[in-house]
Each structure stands twice: as C-alpha cells, then as structure tokens.
C-alpha cells in the first residue's frame, strides 16, 4: 500500500519533470513565432512576448518585398536537393561495394574512409585547396562538393546493406545480372528506409550550411539562408536591408527586428513541415546506428 502510494508520487514527479522539459524545448519556438507576428513598434516597446499586444504581418510582407530571401531560398533548395541526390548516389554505390564482405580489399577500403573521420588536414589547407587550386570560391558548388561524402553515413548505409540476405542477389547474379543492376533492382528497393534516413541526414546538413558562404562567397546572390541568418543575428542594418531596397524615404517604416524573426521562421518552416518524417526515420536510423555502433 505504502509502495503504491510512493509509486504514484514518483509518476507525478516524472510527469512534471518531462513535461516541463518538453515545454522548455517548445518555448523558444513559440516566443519567436509570436514575436515575428508582432508589430515592430510594439516589439521594441514591450520586448519579446508570447502574447503580442498588436499583431502584424508586416515582417513577412517585408522579407518578400526584396529579392534577398527569395534568392537565398532558391540557393538553399538547390544545395539541398542537388547535394542530397549526389551524396546518396556516391554513398550508396560505395556502401554497396563495401557491403557483405565480398571484396578481398574491403577492410582496407573501409579503413581508407574511416581514417578521414579520425584526422583532418584542418580549415587552413581546405581553404587554400578550395580557393587556390579548385577555384570553387564564389560558385554554388562550394556548398556541395566538399560535403558530398560523409564517412559516417557511408558506414551506416553499409550496415543496412549487410542486413540484406546474400542469397537474394546471388540468385540474380547467376542469371547474369551486373552489379549495377542488382543494386538498382534489388538492393535499393529493399533499402528505402535506409535511403530515407541517410537522405534526411544529408539534407539537414545541406539545409544548415553557412560556413562555406562566410569563407568563400562574395556574390550576395549566392548566399544561403543560414548565412543570412548568421549575418542578421548581430547586424540589424542587414535585416533592414532585406526589407527595403535602398529607398531612404521608406526607412522609417521598415521593420528590422521582426524581419529577423520572420527570416528565422521561413528558414525552419520546411523542417517543421517535414518533422513527422524526420522523427520516424531519424529515430529509426539512430537506433540502428546505436545498436550496430
């Protein structure tokens, strides 16, 4: 009797703790959403609040009044789509080659990829390589090419492929099918959850990319969304520039602080939208990764 009473209190305590933590996880989102729909003057007077005194869509109207955000959106979508497609292609080809211990030199190949996770040449040599020898500065490829292969994802995908029963493609091989055909018609269709998981890992990394822009991009038309966020965090004039195309007469009415928040909201928007998928595949992929190490 005593025990079950204690257990009840314990459950109440656990509910309270986890619910408070979840609320704290959610609070910054709600605060930023609410503030982004606040009227600029109200925001400056009252500060960032969950329930704004005066609502306004001005910040959202403002960020679509110039090309900065729409351009950055297109850049970011291109990086994410093209990058993820290229990454998945390169990763799945190599993962298939390494899987199933069919190759004599598979362990050496794996070590070759694994070593890049352990030791890096550092930012300076990457910088010199990119600018002096590859001449990728000020092109959209500087976001994509250095990030195409993640060895971590490669090993994760190899582990997925290892789970496919060998007999399944041995029989097709006897029929004379080439490796590419086996990969395309048997392995990949059986690995859709793996492709989704690893595709999401890659896509999220590309969507979040900003450092290449800071180091290599001069042309404002090639800025990614996250780099614009990075710029306007501490430079409020930059936020104002997003909302106005240089006509000084309009400056007075131009929202800047709320524009900053609206920019953040349109940047996380797709992630919130894809959240159910992220949750399903990410968590599934993570469990597989955790079990297999």
């Amino acid at each position: 009797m005593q025990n079950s009473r204690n257990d009840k209190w314990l459950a109440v305590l656990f509910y309270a703790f986890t619910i408070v933590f979840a609320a704290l996880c959610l609070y910054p989102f709600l605060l930023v959403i609410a503030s982004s729909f606040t009227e600029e003057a109200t925001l400056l007077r009252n500060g960032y609040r969950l329930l704004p005194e005066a609502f306004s869509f001005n910040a959202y109207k403002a960020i679509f009044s110039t090309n900065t955000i729409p351009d950055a959106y297109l850049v970011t979508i291109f990086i994410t789509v093209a990058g993820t497609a290229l990454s998945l292609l390169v990763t799945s080809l190599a993962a298939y080659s390494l899987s199933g211990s069919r190759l004599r030199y598979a362990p050496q190949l794996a070590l070759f990829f694994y070593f890049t996770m352990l030791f890096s040449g550092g930012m300076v040599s990457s910088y010199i390589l990119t600018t002096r020898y590859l001449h990728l500065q000020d092109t959209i490829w500087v976001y994509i090419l250095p990030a195409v292969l993640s060895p971590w994802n490669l090993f994760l995908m190899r582990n997925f492929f290892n789970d496919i029963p060998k007999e399944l493609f041995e029989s097709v091989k006897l029929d004379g099918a080439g490796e590419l055909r086996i990969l395309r018609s048997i392995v990949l269709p059986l690995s859709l959850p793996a492709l989704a998981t690893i595709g999401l890992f890659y896509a999220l990394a590309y969507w979040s990319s900003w450092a290449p822009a800071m180091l290599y991009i001069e042309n404002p038309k090639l800025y990614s969304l996250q780099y614009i966020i990075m710029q306007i965090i501490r430079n409020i004039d930059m936020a104002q520039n997003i909302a106005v195309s240089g006509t000084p007469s309009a400056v007075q009415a131009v929202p800047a602080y709320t524009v900053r928040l609206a920019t953040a909201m349109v940047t996380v928007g797709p992630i919130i939208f894809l959240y159910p998928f992220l949750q399903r595949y990410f968590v599934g992929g993570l469990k597989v990764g955790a079990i297999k190490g």
Partner: protein
Amino acid sequence: MSRITNKHRGIREIVHNRSLYLLAVPAVLFSVVFSYLPMAGVAIAFQDFNPLAGLFGSEWVGLDNFRFFFRGSDWLIITFHTVFFNLMFIITGTALALALAVMLTELGRNAVVRTVQSVMILPNFISWPIIGLFSVTFFTADTGAINQFLHAAGLAPIDFYTEPGVWPPILVLVNLWKTAGFGAIVYMAAIVGIDRELYEAARIAGAPRFQCIFRITLPLLKSTIVMLFLLSLGNIFGGNLEMIYSLVGDNSFLFGSTDTIDTYVFRALRTSGSLGMTQAIALYQSVVGFLLVVTANKIAAKLDRESALF
C-alpha cells in the same frame, strides 16, 4: 615466392570483381580530393606560407610557427575552454538524457509520453544559426525575455553581451536544450532491450519503482553509458565551432570565457596574416584529437568488442 603469388591473387581478385570495385571509385575520389589532399596541407604549418608562392614556393621555417604559438598563453586558454566545454557538455548531456529516458520508459506508452517525446527531439533538428537568433530574443539587453523576467521580479538586468562570466553556463544550458532530448532516445532504446521478466519479478517481490530504477535499470545500462561516455571523451578536443560562433560570434567582450581552438582558428583564418601559424594550431588540434579518438576506441574495444567503432 608465396608473397608473389599472394600479390598475384590480389590483382586477379580486383580484376575479377572490377565492377564492384568501380562502384567505390567516386567516393574514393571525393575522399582523396576533399580529405586527403588537405592532409598534405599540414606542411603549411612548417612554412612561412605565402599564398602567392603556394605550397611548393613558400619558405620552410621548421618549428617556428609552433614555437610562437606555444610561447604565448593563448594556446593554454583555448585548449582549456575546448576541453572544459566538451567535458561539461558530455557530463550534463549524459545525465539529463539518462534521466529523461528512465522517466519516460517508467511512465509507459501513452499520449502524454508520446507528445513529450516528439517535442523534446525537435531542437535537435534546428541549425545553430537559428538557435543563435533564438538566443537573441532571450539575452538582448532590454527587450530580451530573461531581462523582462528579471525586471518583473524586481531584479537587476544582466547585460549578457558584455558579460563573459554568464556564458559558460549559457552554453551548457543551450547544448542541453538542443541535444538532451535526442540523446534520451538512444538510452530509451537500450532500456527497452532489458528483460521485462526482471521487472516482473521485482514487482511480485514488492519492490517500489525507484528501487527498480536503481537496482535494475541503471546497473544494466552501465555498459552502454560507459561506452558512449568513453567514445565521446575521444572527441573532447573536437570543436564546437558552429555552436559557439552562432551564439557568440566575433564579440570580443566574450572571448575571455568562450574562445575555443576552433573559433580561434576560424577567426585567424579570416583576419590574421599568417596562414602558417593558423595551420600550426589546427595541426596541434588534429594530432591530439587523433590520439584521443584512437585511445578511446582502443579502450572501448578492450571493454567490449561489439561496441568499438571499427
């Protein structure tokens, strides 16, 4: 003799399986260009590097770059910050993730638990620049949420962006906010793997729930905890560039408490003249980091062959 035939067999195997080997070629190329070529660039650390003369034309200066770096006190400070932040992140992150995982599995599966679970992993998907922007709404001097709260409570406001002392705890809390919920998922997967019969037996014997947690769940999770802890210790020299740069930026008021090896190198790369010096610092980080990861993996493999990374 046998070595020759062995080599011969090796080549024959490659020729025989050429179509399978070929599939790995694009990945090998990307790896060579973007990972192995920069490794050759570590040579810059031993040069007075001149961008115009390039890697082969620059003057060699031996260990001068290292001498200069290790003579000053910067390296001690940034090394300390790097290790200190990583340690704090690992310890607090493990503790909170573990607590959340134990609590949520104890509560069973119901609508509340499922909702909490979905919400708590949301921050994991948000990029650091966005979190940096979110943080502004909390820490700004007069309009920020925290100073509004302090004002309402009749307390003095804090000028966060000129006050280095408050940032170590802020970084720890923000890191928990982003990572703890997601980290809990790993431990929940491990808890689910524990034999249900143990709990049944304990329940029949009349053990209260908190005793089940401390006598069954936590002891059985010990190897998972130790292993994850060990593997993250291997990365203790690694950077938190994205995080710290997003939250702190180039705000020199705060360097005294937040500057790490990564942020130091990143700043030097964009501002200082000497790429050779900067590379020397990066090489110091790479080498020590490499030794730590390899050691951690070795120890992990000794403890448990299954959970070693390689």
